[in-house]
């Protein structure tokens, strides 16, 4: 058997490989479940029912997929440039902090204005945080993977400080309960993002914004000079520089764009779902890291990201619904990891092909035979 590089990549492979990857991941997960003494088919059945069966379950799945669509898009736009922004988690927190602050500051203003303010503030919060690893990478060639990741821990601790350990503007200090169990101030009603119901399926504003961002990102990368230059620099920074492209500016711009998208996800968490700055809820879900799985499975295609986000959002939603004594916690993370492993392994079949051939006996050619 030989592995050889494909000269052309057939278009259908981009669809078949992720689908087969998910199938393979399910098989491996079944193996893990069997090893630890859980019936796999029964567990999968319950996962599927809790995620996708019925309009209520689907609405919940959309709720879980909204942040994943944002963090997935954030990862996709940066990874396309071989710029590994793993700070989606922290950038989402930053957006949630700035979004909630603006919502509280603008209390009393007309609702559309408050919502617009939250969108801008959330995006700005994420972008500013992402600019730090971006600038360090552009000017000092500091490894952006580690700096962006370290900032996740820093922002997570700041988030805890704001709500649990200080008298910050964002913390609710009125009432008996708020003193015993610290929590964020409830945001004003004007800051509640609207939602639409289509045949019983609830579509929050954040989800629609995510679809808008996905279309924007797709157009940006497929149809504009900026996107083209970003991809050239990603593939070969040297070629980009020789062609006169502004490499440093592009690095910072892409990091900020990526951070802004993740920050939007944070603002959407405040406005769509939580209606307060909620450190526990935000940290528990691991949206930023799951976003990387989403982006990789979508092969960094912004439009596919939304689709994959719904899929993995369903998995996450089912994980919450089913968490209990007989449903092992951590299984969702295990399955996400397995899906990503399989998607990565599947890349081999996109870039290479396996050729089965019978090993031929090495008959020395007659012409080369030397006389005894």
């Amino acid at each position, binding site marked *: 058997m030989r592995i050889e590089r494909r000269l052309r990549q057939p278009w259908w492979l981009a669809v078949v490989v992720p689908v087969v990857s998910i199938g393979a991941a399910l098989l491996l997960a079944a193996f893990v479940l069997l090893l630890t003494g859980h019936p796999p088919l029964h567990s999968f059945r319950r996962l599927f029912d809790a995620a996708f069966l019925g309009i209520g379950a689907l609405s919940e799945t959309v709720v879980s997929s909204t942040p994943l669509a944002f963090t997935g898009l954030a990862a996709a736009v940066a990874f396309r440039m071989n710029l590994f922004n793993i700070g989606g988690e922290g950038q989402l927190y930053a957006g949630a902090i700035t979004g909630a602050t603006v919502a509280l500051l603008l209390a009393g203003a007309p609702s559309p204005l408050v919502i617009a303010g939250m969108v801008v503030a959330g995006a700005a919060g994420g972008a500013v945080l992402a600019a730090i690893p971006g600038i360090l990478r552009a000017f000092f060639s500091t490894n952006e993977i580690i700096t962006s990741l*370290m*900032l996740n821990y*820093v922002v997570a601790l700041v988030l805890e400080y704001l709500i649990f350990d200080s008298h910050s503007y964002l913390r609710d200090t009125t009432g008996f309960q708020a003193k015993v169990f610290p929590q964020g101030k409830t945001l004003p009603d004007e800051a509640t993002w609207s939602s639409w119901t289509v045949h019983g399926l609830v579509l929050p504003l954040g989800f629609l914004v995510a679809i808008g961002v996905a279309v924007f990102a797709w157009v940006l990368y497929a149809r504009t000079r900026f996107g083209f230059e970003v991809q050239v620099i990603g593939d070969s920074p040297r070629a980009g520089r020789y062609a006169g492209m502004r490499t440093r500016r592009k690095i910072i711009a892409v990091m900020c764009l990526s951070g802004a998208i993740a920050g939007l996800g944070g603002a959407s968490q405040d406005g769509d779902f939580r209606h307060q700055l909620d450190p526990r809820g935000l940290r528990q879900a691991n949206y930023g890291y799951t976003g990387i799985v989403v982006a990789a499975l979508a092969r960094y295609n912004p439009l596919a990201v939304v689709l994959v986000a719904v899929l993995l959002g369903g998995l996450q939603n089912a994980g919450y619904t089913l968490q209990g004594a007989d449903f*092992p916690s*951590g299984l969702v993370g*295990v399955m996400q990891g397995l899906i*990503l492993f399989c998607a990565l392994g599947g890349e081999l079949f996109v870039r290479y092909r396996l050729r089965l051939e019978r090993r031929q006996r090495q008959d020395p050619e007659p012409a080369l035979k030397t006389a005894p």
Partner: protein
Amino acid sequence: MNNSLLVVVLASGVTYGTPLLYAALGELLAERSGVLNLGVEGMMLVGAVMGFWTVQRMGGANAVVLVAAVGVAALAGAAMAAIHAFLVITLRANQIVSGLALTIFAGAVGLSSYLANDLQLAGSPAKHQFQEILPKSLQDLPVAGRIVFGQSLLVYCSWVCVVLVALYLTRTRVGLNVRAVGESPAAADAMGINVAAYRYAHTLIGGAFAGIAGATISLSITAQWVDGITRGSGWIAIALVIFAFWRPTLCLVGAYFFGAFSALPYALQSHGVTQAPELFQTLPYVMAILALVLVSSRAARLRFGAPAALGLPYVREER
């Protein structure tokens, strides 16, 4: 005197730095052979949970159980590393994404939490723990007593490991081959070195070290199970390798430096500074960023670079 803030911070800096040191040594071996493994955090967590499981379930003498636990943790870490090795060496996958996948798969909301949940490990303290081993009279010596002699066996073993890894990479034939594989796999291949075998071996050894690092946390520092017990130390270890310029001895210094910063908030708390512990806890992460910026200046990189083939798959016919 032995309770003054400086001594406490330095002593617990050594304690908290030890898992960083083990993890960084393992990552260093893998990276020297050309494999970047960003899954350290995940491998540490699985090592931590399996080591903890061993001490909870195994009967026998204290020493035997603890040694077995460290062995189990090392095996678990190596098993996790094997997934990464297969993906990046055999299937030529992107090393960065594969390492991230490993952290997600094994990490705080993945396999480690699944296993802890399934084996019901949360809530009770470790039945066997690593304690200070040297006699009390030595530990009571001023200053050095607490910092140098008041440590557990794992700390002293880590010193031996630093020396062994340093000698291995500079003084043995096999160690020199490892560096050749990491710097120029094509040249190493031409010399008759089996590049894939070297990379597999060192990725697995790296995983074993990460597993031991995890066990150090769950059996001596925190000594009970909490999901996500490592709290990002795997990532600090990866940063540590970079600003130790891929040198084992510098890893030792760096590990204690970061250990001291991790220990500082707790030491301050016990000395009456109770304001904003969260903000002090950000120190190790902020320092890691600053240190990375310092070492990535151009002059520093020209002298001690990363292994030249770090992160690149090696395919013989695609040079």
